[in-house]
C-alpha cells in the first residue's frame, strides 16, 4: 500500500513540475560560441544581455571557446558529435571551409527567409557582405566583427626622433626610413613590426598592390585555384624586410597577434595589425598614438588598391529546430540595427557592417572629432575592388597560413632566401589546396 501511495504522490509531483514549467515558458536557449577576449568579449556579453532583456522568448548564451582556430575546431568537433551550437563565430580564414560544408551549415539568407524576418542584403556594406556571399549574392553568414589591417604609430616616439607626428609614412621606403630614424632615437629592438605575419605581409600586401594571392579571383570563383604569392613584388618586400631584420630595424613578431603588446608597451613605434586593435590601444597605450593606411611601393602600378577584410562572421549551424532558427533570425535583426552598429563601430574599431550605420557615424561628425578612425573604412572602400582585392577564399587556409608562416620564418632566420621561401610557400600551399578540392567537390 505504502509503495503505491508513494508512487502516486511522485506522479503528482512530476505532473506539478511539468505544468509549472509549461506556465513559466522557459526561454529557448541559443548557444553562441565566439573567440573574442578583453574589451571585445565585453561587447559580446553586452549584446547578448541587451538582446535577452529586450524580449523574453529567446535567450542568447555566449561562450568563449578560445582562439579563432580553436573556436572553429570546437564547432566542427561539436557538429561531428551532434552537439553544435546555433551560432558559431568563424574567422574569415575559415570561410571557404564553412562554405564547402553545405550540409553542416544553414545559410543566413535561408534562416532569415524561413523565419519571416525583414532582411535586405543590400543594406550591408558590399565590401563586407561580398566576402561572405555566393557569386549570386546570397549571404551565407552574418558579418559580425569585420576589421582590416592598418598601420598604428606612436606619436610620442615620432617626436622623440624629430619626425612629424602628423605625417605618418605612406610608402614602404618611407616606413623603412622612419624605422631607421626611430631605431637611432632609442627604439633599438624594433623600429617597425606587425602582427599576423602572413595576413599582413602576404594577403593584405597583395590586395593593396592589386596583385593576386591566388588565381580564380583569390579562390572566390572556384576551388581549383593556385597560389601566386611568389611574384617579384612579393619577393621584393620579403627581401627588404629580411635585410632590416638583421639589425632589428624590422623585427618579426610571430604568427598571431601575441606581439601586439610590443606596440602598447612602447617597444615598437610603428606596428601594423587589425583595426580591431583599437579598444586595446585606447585602454593600454600610455602615449599619443595615430592610425594610418598601410604602406605600399609607389612604383607598383595600381597601388594602393584596397585592403581586404579580416575579423569574423557568424555562421548558423544546421540541424536545429525551426523555433530556434527564429530566435537566431531575431538576434541577427537585433545586431543589424543601425544605432547598435554605429555604437559597435565607435566602441571597438571594427567596421560598421551596414551602410546606414556608416552614414550615421559620418553624419554625427565622429570622424572629424576622432581623426584616423575612418582609416579602415577609407582603405577598404576607397577604390572599387578588383578580382585581386575583393576577398580571399581558400580551403584549408588555417593550415596553409601555418605553412606560409614557417617559410617566412625560415627567410627571416636566414636559412632560406626570400625567393626560395616564397616558392616553397606556394608549392606547399598548392598541395593543401588540391587535397581540399578533393574532399569538397565530390
Amino acid at each position, binding site marked *: 500500500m505504502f509503495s503505491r501511495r508513494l508512487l502516486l504522490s511522485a506522479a503528482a509531483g512530476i505532473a506539478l513540475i511539468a505544468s509549472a514549467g509549461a506556465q513559466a515558458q522557459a526561454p529557448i536557449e541559443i548557444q553562441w560560441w565566439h573567440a573574442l577576449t578583453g574589451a571585445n568579449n565585453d561587447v559580446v556579453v553586452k549584446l547578448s544581455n541587451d538582446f535577452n532583456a529586450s524580449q523574453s522568448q529567446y535567450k542568447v548564451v555566449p561562450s568563449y571557446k578560445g582562439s579563432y*582556430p580553436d573556436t572553429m*575546431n570546437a564547432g*566542427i568537433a561539436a*557538429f*561531428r558529435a551532434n552537439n553544435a551550437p546555433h551560432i558559431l563565430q568563424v574567422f574569415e580564414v575559415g570561410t571557404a*571551409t564553412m562554405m*564547402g*560544408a553545405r*550540409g*553542416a551549415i544553414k545559410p543566413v539568407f535561408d534562416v532569415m527567409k524561413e523565419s519571416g524576418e525583414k532582411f535586405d542584403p543590400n543594406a550591408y556594406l558590399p565590401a563586407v557582405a561580398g566576402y561572405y556571399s555566393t557569386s549570386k549574392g546570397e549571404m551565407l553568414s552574418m558579418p559580425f566583427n569585420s576589421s582590416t589591417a592598418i598601420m598604428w604609430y606612436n606619436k610620442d616616439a615620432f617626436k622623440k626622433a624629430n619626425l612629424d607626428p602628423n605625417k605618418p609614412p605612406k610608402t614602404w621606403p618611407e616606413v623603412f626610413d622612419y624605422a631607421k630614424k626611430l631605431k637611432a632615437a632609442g627604439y633599438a*629592438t*624594433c623600429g617597425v613590426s606587425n602582427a599576423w605575419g602572413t595576413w599582413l605581409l602576404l594577403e593584405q600586401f597583395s590586395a593593396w598592390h592589386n596583385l593576386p594571392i591566388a588565381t580564380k579571383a583569390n579562390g572566390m570563383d572556384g576551388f581549383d585555384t593556385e597560389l601566386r604569392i611568389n611574384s617579384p613584388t612579393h619577393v621584393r618586400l620579403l627581401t627588404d624586410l629580411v635585410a632590416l*631584420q638583421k639589425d632589428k630595424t624590422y623585427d*618579426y*613578431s*610571430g*604568427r598571431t597577434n601575441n*606581439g601586439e*603588446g*610590443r606596440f602598447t*608597451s612602447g*617597444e615598437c613605434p610603428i606596428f601594423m595589425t587589425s583595426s580591431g586593435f583599437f579598444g586595446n590601444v585606447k585602454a593600454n597605450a600610455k602615449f599619443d598614438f595615430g592610425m594610418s593606411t598601410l604602406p605600399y611601393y609607389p612604383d607598383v602600378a595600381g597601388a594602393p588598391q584596397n585592403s581586404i577584410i579580416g575579423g569574423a562572421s557568424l555562421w548558423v549551424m544546421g540541424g536545429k529546430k525551426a523555433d530556434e532558427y527564429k530566435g537566431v533570425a531575431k538576434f541577427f535583426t537585433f545586431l543589424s540595427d543601425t544605432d547598435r552598429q554605429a555604437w559597435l563601430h565607435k566602441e571597438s574599431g571594427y567596421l560598421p557592417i551596414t551602410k546606414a550605420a556608416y552614414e550615421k557615424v559620418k553624419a554625427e561628425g565622429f570622424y572629424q572629432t576622432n581623426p584616423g578612425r575612418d582609416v579602415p573604412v577609407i582603405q577598404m572602400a576607397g577604390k572599387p575592388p578588383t578580382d585581386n582585392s575583393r576577398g580571399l577564399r581558400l580551403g*584549408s587556409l*588555417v*593550415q596553409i597560413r*601555418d605553412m606560409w*608562416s*614557417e*617559410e617566412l*620564418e*625560415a627567410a*627571416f*632566420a636566414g*636559412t632560406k632566401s626570400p625567393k626560395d621561401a616564397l616558392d616553397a610557400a606556394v608549392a*606547399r600551399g598548392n598541395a*593543401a589546396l588540391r*587535397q581540399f578540392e*578533393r*574532399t*569538397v567537390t*565530390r
Partner: protein
Amino acid sequence: MEKRAIYSHKLLPYLLLVPQMVVVIVFFYFPASQALYQSFLLEDAFGLHSEFVWFENFEHVLKDPDYWLSFVVTAIFSVAVAGLSLALALLFAVMADGQIRGANAYKTLMIWPYAVAPAVAGVLWLFMFQPSLGILAQIIRDRFGVDWNPLLNGTHAMLLVIMASTWKQISYNFLFFLAGLQSIPRSVIEAAAIDGASATRRFWTIIFPLLSPTAFFLLVVNVTYVFFDTFGIIDTMTGGGPSQATSTLVYKVYNDGRAGSNLGGSAAQSVILMIIVVALTAIQFKYVERKVHY
C-alpha cells in the same frame, strides 16, 4: 608443506580483471581502432563525405619531406628531454637522500612541478623567456650579449621547449628515484663504506645497479612522456615554430588534424607514431632489460 591460498573459482580472476580491461578498451583500443580506420579515409572536416583510399594517406605522409624533418626534431628532442630529466632527477634524488637539513622541504618542493599542467608550464616558461617581455630573456641579452630570439632562432626555440619539458618531468623521476634509493638496505652501503669504498664507487657498484629496475621503468615512462605528453608545452610555447624547428611527430599529428582538418593524414601519422612507440618499448624490454638486476 608449503602454505598456499587456493581459489577454486575459475571466473574470479577474469572478473577482477574486468574493470581494468574496460578502461583499456574504452580509452585505448577503441580510439586506436578508430584512428586506424580513419587513416584509410579521405574525409572533409565535418565528416560529410568520406572515401576509402587504402594506403594513400600513408603514402602522402611518408613522401612528405616535412614529415621526415619532424622525425629528426623528435629524435633530438626526446633524447635530450629523457636524458636530461633522468640524469638531473637522479642527481637530485641522491642529494635529497643524504643527511641534510630541511630534506623534507626540498623533497616537497621538488615534487611540485609535476602538479603543473603542461600548457601552464609552457606559458610560465614563455613568460620568462619571451624575447621582448621575459625577465630571463633580458638578462640573457644584456648580461651575456646573446641575441636571444626563440621566435626566429630554431635552436633557441628547441632549447626552450627542452628546458620546460625537462623541468616538468624531473619531479616524477625524482619521486621514483628517491623511493628506489630508500629501499636499498643501509647495511649494504655501510658495509661497503667500512671496506673503504669511496662515495663515487659505492654509487656506481652498489646503488646504481640496485636502482636499475627503477631506472628502467622510468626510461620506458619517459620515452612515452616525450613522445606524447609534451604536446601542450610545444603548442603554448612555439606552436611548432619557428619554421618547423620544434614540430615533433605528435605536434604534427595535432596540427595536420586540427588546424589542417586533414583527419586521414593525421590519423595515418598517429598510427605510425603508435607503431614507433610500441617498437621502442619492445626494444627496451628486449635489450635494456637484460642489464637490469631485480
